[in-house]
């Protein structure tokens, strides 16, 4: 491969990894801290993405659209959580996945507004022009950047900021109460911790973070399709979480890079096989990784075994 092209390609893979990292940080709050098994996480990403795209294509300025989209994702989290958070853990998982699918099917069907399966074009609005302005600014100073670099940097800055923010509240009494709820709701309630509110807050926070990943995804892809938000995305998120370690924010970062390289990066290597066979093998590897981790190291690479709680 041409080295310059190769650089652009790697930049793309790393940006995808960054989007996943943000997405999974949201999962981490929900599962790692609050013990909520949210199998419909991709729905919050979809809300973030389509809200951004729809506002932008309807003329809302990007800097207003983005925070609104994140807020909407959080609101959607509250909306889903209010009736369902009292359910058993495995029921909650199924309900969230179902809610996510309903949303996706609606997006697919409301073709007039969302473009349906034809896609929502130019969802990232004037981002391309902004990107060019950034590139020109650098080349004016003698630095020629690949056109993918600005978003790569933005994505990882956001990912690191979110991780730092989570680590910041990770030491707070709020998270202690949340971990208590995760492990035993009765014990937490018996000393007065508001179990339901804590879970709702964790769900909404995770949803907002997934909403941010949806915004980044929109900037990366420029067009949005309903099939970008199938349940498999959530499950890839879970692979990252399991690999990096449930409970570890740093693990999320490492896990997303590894998984993004397996899923997108291997394309770079030349196998004497057809493309779809290679694609299949990549997911086989992901599956084997999940299985191996669950069997031999359920706390993941960076998680603490003593703090792993997998039976909510």
């Amino acid at each position, binding site marked *: 491969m041409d080295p310059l092209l190769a650089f652009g390609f790697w930049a793309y893979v790393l940006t995808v990894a960054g989007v996943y990292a943000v997405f999974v940080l949201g999962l981490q709050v929900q599962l790692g801290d609050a013990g909520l098994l949210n199998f419909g996480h991709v729905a919050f990403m979809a809300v973030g993405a389509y809200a951004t795209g729809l506002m932008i294509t309807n003329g809302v300025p990007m800097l207003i659209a983005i925070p609104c989209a994140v807020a909407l994702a959080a609101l959607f989290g509250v909306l889903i959580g209010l009736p369902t958070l009292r359910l058993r853990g495995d029921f909650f998982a*199924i309900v969230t996945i*179902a809610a996510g*699918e*309903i949303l996706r099917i609606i997006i697919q069907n409301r073709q007039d507004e969302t473009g349906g399966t034809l896609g929502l074009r130019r969802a990232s609005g004037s981002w391309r022009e902004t990107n060019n302005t950034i590139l020109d600014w650098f080349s004016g100073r003698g630095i020629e950047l690949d056109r993918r670099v600005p978003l790569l940097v933005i994505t990882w800055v956001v990912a690191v900021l979110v991780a730092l923010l989570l680590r910041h509240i990770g030491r707070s009494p709020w998270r202690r109460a949340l971990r208590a709820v995760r492990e035993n709701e009765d014990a937490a309630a018996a000393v007065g911790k508001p179990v339901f509110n804590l879970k709702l807050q964790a769900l909404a926070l995770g949803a907002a973070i997934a909403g941010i990943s949806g915004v980044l995804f929109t900037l990366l892809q420029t067009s949005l399709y309903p099939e970008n938000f199938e349940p498999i995305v959530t499950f890839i998120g879970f692979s990252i979480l399991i690999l990096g370690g449930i409970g570890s924010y740093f693990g999320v970062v490492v896990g997303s890079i590894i998984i993004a390289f397996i899923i997108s990066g291997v394309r770079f290597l030349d196998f004497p096989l057809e493309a779809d066979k290679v694609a299949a093998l990549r*997911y*086989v590897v992901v*599956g084997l990784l999940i*299985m191996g981790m669950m069997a031999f190291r359920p706390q993941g690479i960076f998680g603490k075994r003593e703090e792993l709680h997998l039976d909510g």
Partner: protein
Amino acid sequence: MDELLQTTINGLASGSIYALGAVGLSLVYAILKLVNFAHGDFMTLGGYAAFVVNVTWGLPLVVSVLGALVVVAALGLLTEAAIWRPMRERGAGVMQLLLLSLGFSFVLRNLILFAWGGETRTLRVDNTSSYDLGIVRISLLQVIVIVVSAVAMVAVALLLRRTYVGKSMRALSDSFALAEVSGINTRRVVTYTWILGGGLAGLAGFLATIFTVLTPQTGWVLLLGIFAAIILGGIGDPFGALVGGLTLGLVQEWSTMVFAPTYKEAVGFAILILALLFRPNGLLGHATRTG
């Protein structure tokens, strides 16, 4: 009226497939406490086994059903020996097993994709004949699906209620430990569970294949509906799973009288959510003891 009858027939057919998948998954859950996310892919494998027998080898359709049953039951036993039993012996919890099965579903689905590619496949089956019953039409395929499922369900019901193995299974689903001390050979029962659960998955996969088309995604796509069926019926109750599956199929088809058919699945999931909120113990609703 015609429309109601017609959608009812369609719903019974698609509901039968959900029901078969749900009964198998529910059996495995009841006895092994395994929420098997690979169950849909077990079904897919059944479809491909039938495809190999019927198309690649050119044998009759009836033989291909056997192929599906045997291959998936064998896969169940194989995973039991290689994965589930060792994990149980190491004290793995429900969530750990669930996530493990999720990983296995990735592996299985993509091995299928690797082996057979992503093209849609069909069996050598007459998918054009249909019978005009005056006010409604019923296709040959619908007849096959409904009749085969009904026979399978009756067989399973008899097996669970009348035979020693079936009674042992029910004992295990109440309490594995208690069954063990009362002298039931739990290993044997677990073996039968996989044969039965796997066989039902194979059969469901076969029916899904002739009723729709076969791709590596066929079973995975049905999985959420199957979960919905189980929850609708009340978790861990095979008879409930049957009712849940049929309900789901019927509601989905009936909904096409009101909404566009493309919303069919969404309606099914909406029913699931409503049911969970208002009848968390299933439609048949016997409250379980908690605390």
